[in-house]
């Protein structure tokens, strides 16, 4: 092959592949320009820490990016109002349900609570704890202004507030405190010839479920549902086991003839728990002709019982 042939071949190659070569060159130049642009617009490096406030402690899920900043701003506003003792504005950041079910729609109750937590100027930090179905649960750790004191003459004391933020799709985010999540209308009923039980409401908190019950004794006898004479008289049945009542004050549940009583049954169940509730169980319902509450007469009273049975309420 002569040099002339070689030159002709090269020229021919360029002629045949002109378009392809132009496309390749344009793409190459484009890549170089994009790279240069990205180099120049790279975000400034920020100090790396182990603090990741929007990553859930429970399962490492991350709060959606678009909500992170609004949530931070909302909590900051709330703490600022509390520090400034601007009760009304702080109260207005709460959901209506929280105002109603945690503070009985009374700002004085809220004020009392805030005064106990924010007794001096506080600083805070947030940590996402758990996320479920658009509900973002944060632990807000409230502490004295340790930067201002340098921890002089004090031990590090913190107060952990469980703050719940529910994304209802609007821009107006609100929060609820003290772990309160929501209330649900239950409208469940059980009735037989002796007793009528209505479950009217369920209060959901991060750590607890509280059922509101109305129990009516339809008989001329005495209805005993729980007097702690046997174990597991009332419990919440879950596929992870039985949950006993965790009411602050546990009193026997004895209903006299014609009487209607109102109860709040509290059980420990975490909002993000996977356990399924099978029912609210009254395992030892006793319809008695007489009841003294004394151990001495217990057996004879049971021997003369009109009826003894158990109830499982679908809740």
């Amino acid at each position, binding site marked *: 092959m002569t040099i002339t042939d070689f030159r002709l071949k090269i020229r021919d190659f360029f002629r045949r592949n002109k378009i392809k070569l132009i496309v390749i060159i344009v793409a190459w130049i484009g890549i170089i320009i994009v790279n240069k642009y990205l180099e120049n617009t790279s975000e400034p490096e920020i*100090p790396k820490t182990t603090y990741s406030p929007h990553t859930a402690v429970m399962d490492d899920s991350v709060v959606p990016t678009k909500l992170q900043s609004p949530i931070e701003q909302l909590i900051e506003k709330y703490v600022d109002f509390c520090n400034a003792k601007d009760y009304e504005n702080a109260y207005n950041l709460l959901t209506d349900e929280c105002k109603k079910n945690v503070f009985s729609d009374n700002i004085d109750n809220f004020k009392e609570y805030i005064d106990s937590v924010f007794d001096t100027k506080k600083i*805070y*930090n*947030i940590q996402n704890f758990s996320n479920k179905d658009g509900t973002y649960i944060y632990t807000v750790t409230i*502490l004295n202004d340790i*930067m*201002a*004191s*340098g921890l*002089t003459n004090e031990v590090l004391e913190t107060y952990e507030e469980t703050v719940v933020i529910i994304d209802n799709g609007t821009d107006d985010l609100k929060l609820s405190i003290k772990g309160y999540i929501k209330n649900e209308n239950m409208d469940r009923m059980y009735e037989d010839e002796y007793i009528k039980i209505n479950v009217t409401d369920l209060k959901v908190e991060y750590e607890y479920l509280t059922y509101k019950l109305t129990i009516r004794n339809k008989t001329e006898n005495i209805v005993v549902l729980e007097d702690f004479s046997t174990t597991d008289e009332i419990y919440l049945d879950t596929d992870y086991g039985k949950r006993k009542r965790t009411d602050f004050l546990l009193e026997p549940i004895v209903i006299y003839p014609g009487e209607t009583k109102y109860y709040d049954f509290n059980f420990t169940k975490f909002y993000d728990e996977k356990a399924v509730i099978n029912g609210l169980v009254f395992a030892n319902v006793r319809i008695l002709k007489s009841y003294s509450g004394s151990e001495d007469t217990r057996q004879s009273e049971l021997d003369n019982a009109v009826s003894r049975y158990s109830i499982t309420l679908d809740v």
Partner: protein
Amino acid sequence: MKDKTTILLTIAMLTLLVCNIALYANKILSPSIHNKSIEQQYQDYLEQRIAQEQEQEDVVVSDEEMADEQLKDLKSMGEEDRMYTYIHTFLSYIESSDYKSAYDLLYPDFKEQYFKTQADFEEYVKNKYPQFMRLEYKSIERQGEYYIVSVLISSEIATNKPSLQQRFVLHENDFNDFEISFQV
């Protein structure tokens, strides 16, 4: 006699002429000589300034290099080591009697509460800390964006000042940009 007078008058005229010429020459030439002297002085001064500026520039560049190096180090560190570095920086200022730089690092509300003036701060640190400090970091705890570091401070040389365990609270805004307070 007449010739003698003529000679004397001629000598006098010539003397006057020489004087005039000398004065005239001086008048013309003097500023030039003077200017040259000023120019030389200016040149010397300029050279001196350039040398000084160059010297200063060399120092600035070296400071910048040092800062760059420190920043690079900080970027490669974990948060724990960065906090230790910040405390070390703060106490180094005190050690080198650069109280202003140390005072400027204090958190404003902390200053307001404990050291309203730099003089108060100086008095405190002079009494509290040994001249040459040995630091032993005992523990570190994070509270959100705040760090609590416990440090045992003792003297590098024999002294009658006892060792001191002190807690420092730090908040890092950015690399090498932090605020500090401590247990008074």
